């Protein structure tokens, strides 16, 4: 029993480490881009520190988002909640709002494409069915 509990805790720990590694990887890529852009190298410790801060910041984000959604009597976090998260800086709020509109636009286009494709498929199947009927009539 005791052994089982211990392994559960260990599992949670290794899961956390894996998530941290994933964050570290992305932070590394982003820092690399900034480094080549600004022609200035980052030490490994700096990248590790930024990763750790980012991981910690996720906790703040998650707790805020959950509370925003609950305040609006929802159990699903939507983009309005995320916009509220960026309230502290004017330019950040503006950027996130623009990004939100971009994402919404992209989704709309995707949906339209999907619908068109579906309609085309339906038309094709109807046509082939009609062709089949004609063939059988002959």
């Amino acid at each position, binding site marked *: 029993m005791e052994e089982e509990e211990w392994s559960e805790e260990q599992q949670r720990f290794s899961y*956390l480490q894996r*998530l941290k590694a*994933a*964050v570290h990887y*992305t*932070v590394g*890529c*982003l*820092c*690399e*881009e*900034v*480094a080549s*852009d*600004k022609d*200035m*190298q*980052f*030490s490994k*410790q*700096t990248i590790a*520190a*930024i990763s750790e*801060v*980012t*991981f910690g*910041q*996720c*906790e703040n*984000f*998650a*707790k805020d*988002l*959950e509370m925003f*959604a*609950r305040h609006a009597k929802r*159990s*699903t*976090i*939507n*983009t309005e*909640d*995320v*916009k509220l*998260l*960026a309230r*502290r*800086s004017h330019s*950040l709020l503006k*950027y*996130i709002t623009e*990004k*939100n509109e971009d*994402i*919404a636009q992209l*989704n709309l286009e995707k949906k339209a494409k999907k619908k068109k494709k579906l309609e085309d498929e339906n038309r094709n199947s109807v046509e082939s069915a009609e062709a089949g009927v004609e063939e059988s009539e002959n």
Partner: protein
Amino acid sequence: MEETGAVFRKELVSKLLHLHFKDKKTKVSGDALQLVAELLKIFVVEAAIRSVRQAQAEGLAHVDVEQLEKVLPQLLLDF
């Protein structure tokens, strides 16, 4: 700002958020996940660029933890 190729994956963002939710029933919409990923990217890039600027002001050739430490308080106030 420069075009960045690296992004936080939606699956990762989802797992990171669900780690800290108090209510297990809390869900996140797909668009919201994408937006949080963008926010995290800005956070990281901002941390990096501010550290670079600090290192430049100090006349250093590369960025170390000390420069990050100096810009961190204001960064955390901005997010």
